[in-house]
């Protein structure tokens, strides 16, 4: 038995990064993710790593650019407004094909918004975020243990695709404490040789890390190369959890913290004899469209619940491709739907269907 630790999601994500051989962290304080940089500032020097507090999120993401370009496994973490500030740098990292892990512990927006949990950065995370033709690989944990596993895997995936990977949590995932296990059995770490890294042109022609292609034909070729990796992600990396979907007449679609709450609602509804199941996307990009395409043949109704005013619901509808009936329920601004609210919504959905 692996030793269990009792930690907040933020601390667990930080330790997971260290155990995935991340030795460089650059960040800027913002609530509700401060435990990540605080943990890193203690922990990284113990393992010969570097923690550096940047002067801004803009500087932080560009320090990642420099560190990743030099060949390091590197991470930053922030929360919604800070992630907005990083978008330019993230776009540059995709353009320059640099791997890194970015943790977004979402809070309510727009603007300064609030500091309570939210899922309102779904569009930004999954549809590109910055300028240009690209996607990030986006992983959405719903428990602290899963946050650990996905953070470790995020580094391998970033290296594999030479693309930034985002771990998308919310204030609950970051702040709540749960028992977690660390250990190598939860990861298959791969450290590909980074022959492209900028370590000094010794015994080889110089390397160049860049995203500028003034000739449109060259830029198109470059973008197609990036898109090829995105197509490979779509083919190879979709992760999804399904729960009681075989006989389900209504499917609840939710990710992250909301999926936990939905699980409780489903338990209650099943006890009442209702055939309810759940689809929980774990990768938000690539999105499990196929899973929704399959369930649309059987379950006629999909209730999408989010801590936003409806973002993932658009991908669910794409997956269903006009089949079935979709209902959305969301809370915003840091308000969290209770399992009672989800039960009520599900029951209304059933009644309205009968009418």
């Amino acid at each position, binding site marked *: 038995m692996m030793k269990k630790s009792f930690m907040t999601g933020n601390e667990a994500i930080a330790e997971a990064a260290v155990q995935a051989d991340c030795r*460089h962290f*650059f960040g800027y304080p913002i609530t509700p993710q401060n435990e990540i940089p605080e943990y890193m500032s203690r922990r990284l020097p113990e393992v010969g790593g*570097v923690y*550096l507090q*940047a*002067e*801004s999120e*803009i*500087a*932080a993401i*560009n*320090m*990642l*650019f*420099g*560190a*990743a*370009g*030099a*060949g*390091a496994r*590197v991470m930053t973490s922030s929360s919604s407004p800070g992630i907005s500030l990083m978008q*330019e*740098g993230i776009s*540059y990292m995709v353009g*320059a094909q640099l791997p890194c892990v970015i943790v977004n512990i979402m809070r309510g927006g727009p603007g300064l918004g609030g500091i309570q949990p939210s899922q309102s950065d779904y569009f930004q995370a999954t549809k590109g975020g910055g300028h240009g033709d690209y996607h990030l690989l986006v992983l959405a944990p719903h428990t602290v243990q899963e946050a650990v596993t996905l953070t470790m895997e995020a580094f391998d995936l970033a290296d594999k695709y030479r693309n930034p990977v985002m771990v998308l949590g919310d204030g609950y995932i970051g702040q709540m404490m749960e028992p977690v296990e660390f250990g190598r059995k939860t990861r298959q770490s791969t450290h590909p040789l980074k022959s492209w890294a*900028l*370590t*000094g*042109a*010794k*015994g080889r022609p*110089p*390397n*160049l*890390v*860049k*995203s*500028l292609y003034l000739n449109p034909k060259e830029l198109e070729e470059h973008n197609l190369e990036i898109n090829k990796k995105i197509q490979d992600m779509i083919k190879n990396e979709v992760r999804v959890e399904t729960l009681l979907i075989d006989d389900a007449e209504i499917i609840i679609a939710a990710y992250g913290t909301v999926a936990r709450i939905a699980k409780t609602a489903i338990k209650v509804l099943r006890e009442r004899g209702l055939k309810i199941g759940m689809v929980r996307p774990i990768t938000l990009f690539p999105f499990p469209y196929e899973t929704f395409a399959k369930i649309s043949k059987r379950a006629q109704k999909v209730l999408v619940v989010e801590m936003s005013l409806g973002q993932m619901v658009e991908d669910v509808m794409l997956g269903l491709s006009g089949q079935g009936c979709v209902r959305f329920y969301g809370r915003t601004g840091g308000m969290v739907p209770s399992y009672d609210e989800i039960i009520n919504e599900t029951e209304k959905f059933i009644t309205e269907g009968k009418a």
Partner: protein
Amino acid sequence: MRMQGKFEKIFERPRTLRSTATHYCPGCGHGIVARLLAEVIDEFKIREKTVGVAPVGCSVLLYNYLDIDMYEAAHGRAPAVATGCKRVNPESIVFTYQGDGDFVSIGIAESIHAAARGEKITTIFINNAIYGMTGGQMAPTTLIGQKTTTSPRGRTSEEAGFPIRMSELLATIDGAAYIARVSVSNPKNVIQAKKAIKKAFETQINGLGYSMVEVLSHCPTDWHMTPLESTKWVEGHMMPYYPLNEFKAPKRRN
């Protein structure tokens, strides 16, 4: 006495400078500084461990001219990129090559904080008082009265404030170990400029902190002058406001 047909080679292209045409306009100061950089890198024999950062602006294509590992950085972010690189590989010699818009306007936070951290990197800052790459707009270092495409009646302090003296500003920061302003307006100044660049790299090699050389440079195209007029303009107009000086240098050991 030399033998017939055999000549001693007394001048050649530095190893670090690639044999290629540059995109710089005729008479531009950038090419001179690129060569000085290449000479300094050769003289310290650090080509194989030097990593450069070229951000947006006329600076950006420097990687086509120097035969070393290089990053292209977002506008203003070169000191942050260089910081990331140096913190991963402290044995690398890392420099940024930035224009006035990049170093003093959009990236001034990164510039000041890299200096404040005493980041062991070197910045070569090309001050030509104008945005060259985008076609001659007002820079944070554009002089009062200077006409640009976005200050068509000449810069006024009422509308656009005052030009920033970056060397003087950075010299107040404890983490900055070497700060100098030089020019490439005539051969004597070019020789002085090379000495300053050499000292800046030496400061980094010795691990003494942040180093920066501000190079007053000429932009005949966007100043609408001949190359010769533009070098005279550097001396007659820029130098009175931006005096050449070694503002800060590490104390000589011995």
